[in-house]
């Protein structure tokens, strides 16, 4: 078992290195002179020589790569061209929003998708099954941003004045202030220190922050603002999870031991959940891990639609301004996160399926 886990961990290292190399090469492929891109077209050659020396651009590519990796590993993603601020600082401010949105969407996808898939498989070929599968097929074919706009139109405009009205954009209603937990708890943190940055990072999870500080008004408002974007973002993963669950369940329900369990008179529910579902969990957890990447890429589109100040939104602005350090940082963060999630999924196999433990 330990061997398996260690092997998985070791296999992740070359992939992580690869991610850094790809992003490094992409940054070097940007056409044009980086000096003039940063300092403007009128920068003189003398200034550019100094600039290149300062930024290590006069060194061989391999040396640059090593320096680049050292920087990234120490959390230094460089300066944003547009904001002239450290990208890491921007990430601390913006990443929590994106993670919150991503997990809310994942929660919806899992909580709706898995039961839908199980029911569709158990009641195979029933109207419910057909409806679920039609819904799932449409779900995977829909552009996330389009669904976001349509939801916005329906819930913020058509349902205006009804209890179903939902806010079309923003993270909180203006005027509400989510006091950071470290202020509420009276922690004396030095600005700029790593502990302050960590506290700031966690306090930017509004839902988490409002729960631990007991600020229920903010919690309700933040959740209210999260429903539409999370709903829009969840559709594709939801549809895929439902389809995967259905086919995995169908596969398992065909097995002899399920028939045996039924034959010995066990309750239908027990057979479905204890005998069938546990064995279908393996492919389901795989697909959930894989969908997390799609989810965070989709967040870029969803956030820009709903005016949420997350990383996706700033990435959208960065694209227009060609602010590559931000694009690069976000790509690295999401890709590394994606690799880790899939690593966790791989390791969780050991607990889901004892056969893997033995092999």
């Amino acid at each position, binding site marked *: 078992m330990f061997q398996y886990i260690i092997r998985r961990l070791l296999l992740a290292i*070359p*992939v992580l290195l*690869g*991610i850094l*190399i*790809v*992003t490094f090469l*992409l*940054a070097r*492929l*940007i*056409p044009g002179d980086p000096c003039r891109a940063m300092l403007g077209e009128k920068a003189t050659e003398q200034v550019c020589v100094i600039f290149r020396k300062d930024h290590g651009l006069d060194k061989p590519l391999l040396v640059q790569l090593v320096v680049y990796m050292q920087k990234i590993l120490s959390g230094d993603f460089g300066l944003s061209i547009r904001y002239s601020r450290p990208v890491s600082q921007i990430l601390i401010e913006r990443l929590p929003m994106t993670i919150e949105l991503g997990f809310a969407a994942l929660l919806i996808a899992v909580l709706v998708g898995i039961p839908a898939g199980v029911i569709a498989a158990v009641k195979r070929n029933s109207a419910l099954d057909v409806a679920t599968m039609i819904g799932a*097929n*449409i779900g*995977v*074919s*829909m*552009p*996330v*941003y*389009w*669904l976001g*706009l*349509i939801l*916005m*139109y329906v819930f*913020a*405009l058509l349902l205006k004045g009804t209890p179903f009205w939902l806010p079309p954009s923003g993270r909180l209603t203006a005027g509400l202030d989510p006091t950071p937990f470290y202020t509420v708890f009276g922690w004396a943190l030095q600005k700029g220190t790593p502990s302050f940055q960590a506290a700031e990072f966690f306090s930017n999870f509004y839902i988490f922050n409002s729960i631990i500080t007991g600020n229920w008004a903010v919690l309700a408002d933040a959740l209210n603002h999260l429903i539409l974007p999370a709903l829009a973002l969840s559709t594709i993963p939801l549809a895929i999870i439902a*389809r*995967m669950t259905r*086919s*995995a369940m169908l*596969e398992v329900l065909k097995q002899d031991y399920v028939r045996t369990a039924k034959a010995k008179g066990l309750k239908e529910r027990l057979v479905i959940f204890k005998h069938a579902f546990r064995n279908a969990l393996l*492919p389901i957890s*795989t*697909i959930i891990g*894989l969908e997390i*990447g*799609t989810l*965070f*890429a*989709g967040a*870029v*589109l969803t956030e*820009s*639609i709903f005016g949420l100040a997350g990383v996706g939104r700033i*990435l*959208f602005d960065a*694209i*227009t301004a*060609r602010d*590559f350090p931000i*694009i*690069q940082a*976000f*790509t690295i963060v*999401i*890709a590394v996160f*994606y*690799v880790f999630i899939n690593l966790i999924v791989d390791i969780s196999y050991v607990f889901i399926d004892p056969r893997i433990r033995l092999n």
Partner: protein
Amino acid sequence: MTSLSETLTNNQKDYRSNSLWRLTLRRILRQRNAVLGLVILAFLVLVAIFAPLLAPYDPNQVLIGVEEEVFRRQPPCIHALGCPADWHQHILGIDGNVRDEFSRVIFGTRVSLFIGFTTIGFAIIIGTLLGAIAGYFGGAVDNIIMRIMDVLMAFPSLLLAIAIVSVLGPGLENALVAIGIVTIPVYARVVRGSVLSVKENTYVSASRAMGAGPFHILINRIMPNVLAPLIVQGTLGIGTAILDAAALSFLGLGAQPPMAEWGNMLGVERNQVFTAPHLVFFPGIAIMITVLAFNLMGDGLRDAIDPRLGQSQRIE
């Protein structure tokens, strides 16, 4: 009593009607999903071919001064639904630059189908080449190629495409290249897997014993066996490619105005969703129907061509 020749021709008939292609075709036609997808796709192809005949206007023609009573973002005007008869009919309304939305949606079909087929064609060619080389030669070559593919797959595809286009610069061609690159690993993996499972067969060894070179074996002995999963994966891939390309255009990285591309049309009018919902609604529906057609067909093909190839193969 049947004569010998009659028996022979009957047998021949049986043999012919059970040929691999016919059998596959019959199986495909038995899949409701595949048939539905095929019908929608055929319809879309016809729309794309006959776009100039179907569209009442040039998709890029600004109608100010050409028609009276047209205004910016005018809602749909359909005579049968009570729109005044002296108004010009615009069944999907007018866009922000006073162009006929219906004509733009019609012409958008061409762009989307073109995007789908070119990106996946590109990815299949490169992916097949890499996968075949990796699978056939094995060893270090296999390791190097597949580790690069692993790294490419470690990025969510849309995100890597965004990064590539922001390096190459916005534009439809660059978006196509980016989407092509990020989808290569899928095909490389499928082909490699098939090559690995086929190359140990005796007919391959026989061919090798008869002195055939590696490329002859790859193309004539191995590739025919790889085609089925490749077609299935390719059909499903086209849907995703269209969706991703539309997303890039929506972000302003793909097709540029004034091109009538659905994602771009949505992106340009996204802030008008409350005032002119028709400009958001219809391009989105068009994207959805097109992607749905390819997904239905891909699912149906998968079930028809290779029933063993369940969902598990797809998610790898």
